[in-house]
């Protein structure tokens, strides 16, 4: 489904991604782990098409099509979904209006008729229950005044509404308490499907207790330095990143979480 070859990207002239290679097939769940600053969010943002990041070489194809030459909205309509590490607050645009516009843009792209307000409301209520968000949140501004956990649940809610082909989840587990982590991982597990690929970016292994990945990759300084099965995540938890020769001050302190 997704094929990343020798991907280099930089921001403000500074190279962040230094040759990423990654193949993801439909139905698979891949986890990317790595210390802070290793380039995980950069990779996620580049895949979603954020032009604050410049791709300097390499290629990304999705189902055989060149992803990099498409606009962000086209990628989204083709099924790319990014759950943001830091979801943006947009006061003045209600969550409901935002999601309905989004769902209808996708439907329009597929040649389907728009969902009317009532149909949409019904769907939105159901899905909000699934991620344990009070439907009252739908009326608030997009992410406006949401707690960290509420923002993450809102991202998962959008993924469930949009049913993407490729879901990229950037640290969707960070800042969640145990209960919220359960809700979010149930949501992600509900997304697992044969025709869908999931790329999970995480700093800690604890999410992987709930969502068992098929593959784990370690990203350090803009490169994938090691790939393996889920046992790699466990090993990282036991031994930190240091045994791979990677410096990471935080993980040692936080691995107990």
């Amino acid at each position, binding site marked *: 489904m997704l094929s990343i070859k020798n991907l280099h990207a930089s921001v403000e002239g500074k190279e962040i991604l230094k040759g990423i290679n990654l193949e993801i097939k439909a139905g698979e769940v891949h986890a990317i782990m790595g210390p802070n600053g290793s380039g995980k969010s950069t990779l996620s943002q580049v895949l979603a098409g*954020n032009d604050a990041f410049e791709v300097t070489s390499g290629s990304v194809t999705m189902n055989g099509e060149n992803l990099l030459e498409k606009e962000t909205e086209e990628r*989204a309509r083709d099924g790319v979904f990014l759950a943001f590490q830091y979801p943006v607050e*947009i006061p003045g*645009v209600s969550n409901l*209006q*935002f999601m309905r516009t989004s769902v209808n843009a996708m439907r329009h792209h597929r040649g389907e008729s728009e969902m009317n307000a009532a149909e949409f409301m019904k769907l939105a209520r159901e899905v909000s229950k699934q991620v344990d968000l009070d439907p009252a949140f739908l009326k608030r501004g997009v992410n406006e005044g949401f707690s960290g956990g509420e923002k993450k649940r809102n991202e998962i809610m959008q993924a469930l509404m949009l049913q993407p082909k490729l879901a990229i989840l950037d640290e969707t587990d960070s800042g969640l308490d145990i209960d919220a982590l359960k809700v979010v991982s149930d949501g992600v597990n509900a997304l697992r499907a044969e025709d869908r690929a999931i790329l999970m970016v995480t700093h800690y292994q604890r999410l992987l207790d709930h969502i068992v990945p098929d593959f784990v990759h370690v990203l350090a300084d803009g490169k994938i330095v090691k790939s393996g099965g889920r046992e790699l995540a466990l090993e990282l938890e036991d031994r930190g990143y240091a045994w791979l020769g990677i410096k990471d001050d935080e993980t040692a302190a936080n691995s107990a979480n």
Partner: protein
Amino acid sequence: MKPAPTLLSPAFLHPAGQALPEPLLALRKQRGAALVDMPMPTRKTENWKYSSKYLKLTDEMATSLPTTGKTGSALAVPGYKVVFINGVVMPEASEYPDLDNIRIQRFGDLSDAEASDLVERLDSTLDAKAVQFAGLNTARFEDGLVIRLKPDAALDQPLFIIHEVTADASGSAFPRIFVDAGRNSQLTLVEEYISSGEEAVFVNSVTEFTLAEGANITNIRLSMGGENVQHIGATGVTQQRSSRFESHCVGFGGPLRRHDLRVRLEGKGAECKLNGVVVTQDTQHYDNHTTIEHVAPNCDSEETYRNIAADKSHAVFNGRIHIHPDAQKSNANMSNKNLLLSTGAEIDTKPELEIYADDVKCAHGATIGQLNEESLFYLVSRGIGRREANVLLTMAFINELVTQIPVEAVRDTVQARLSQFFDQAFQEV
């Protein structure tokens, strides 16, 4: 030696229409005489600094537009309405409420005694030195409306005033309204300024409100004239004890748009809320000058203005709050936020605070910015088209103010005009 200032052309000092009571004719004459040496605003005129270059009055525009004939394209609005065409009321197109405690009279229908009483009060809400063009209106009006609300009078629906100019020839119009709101009376007055025809015209309007104790008035002002209309308008308000004035000014740009809004809180516990939205595009202009005078103690004012400027347009906001020495426990809030949709657009904003009392709460803030790139990316990453994302974010900037407009028909009109604006402003997005 200073060069002699350019004066208002004498061509502008000939009022038309004599069908007015004698006291009003005399007032007109007196005001006209006072304008003989009125200097035209220039770059150096403080309160016209950013706008004088847009004011292009020619002698062809000095003549009053004809007041007979067709009623133009006056909107089909529901309920009570009064239609002005070129500054003169069209009774056949109007629909007055039929109530004993609300009197709506044309200037021409006033008795001499009533007219004398009105003469005492006209211009009383506006400082003629600060708002010179209000004086021009008084020198030129041909007709006008006095709306008198007796104590406790309340109109069950909004009263619409449609001000249309039919610009089939060059000329000018001087619509005038005076609202005398008695104790505890209530009214929502909607003013819509529209135009038809293509010739260059000048509209010079004045609306005044005097609010007695406990009166509660809402004024919605929609400025939607065409690209051929230069409009200088003023709204003056005086408020007595515990009265409340709420204003919603929505303006779309033009070759010259100027609105002065002046509110004097003269009675203890009076309260005003002023909302404003301005949208400009192409090479349009819009200038709002507001002044809130806290004269009496314990008054509240809350002002929220938003400007959106696209293309090469130019919006100006000047908000002055003046807290007089006796106005202890004043509470004044002013917020002005500005959105530039293009690098060629210009917005000038200036809050002015003059505080002469010590026990007051006064907050103000002004910002100028562009659409947030991160927010745009977030929206398009959900498949929302770039154009639509721009529209959503621009609407987000003014939504709070648009939804507060308390009349649905007006909100619909505003939304429709905004859609046109977006179609053009984001056509290349």
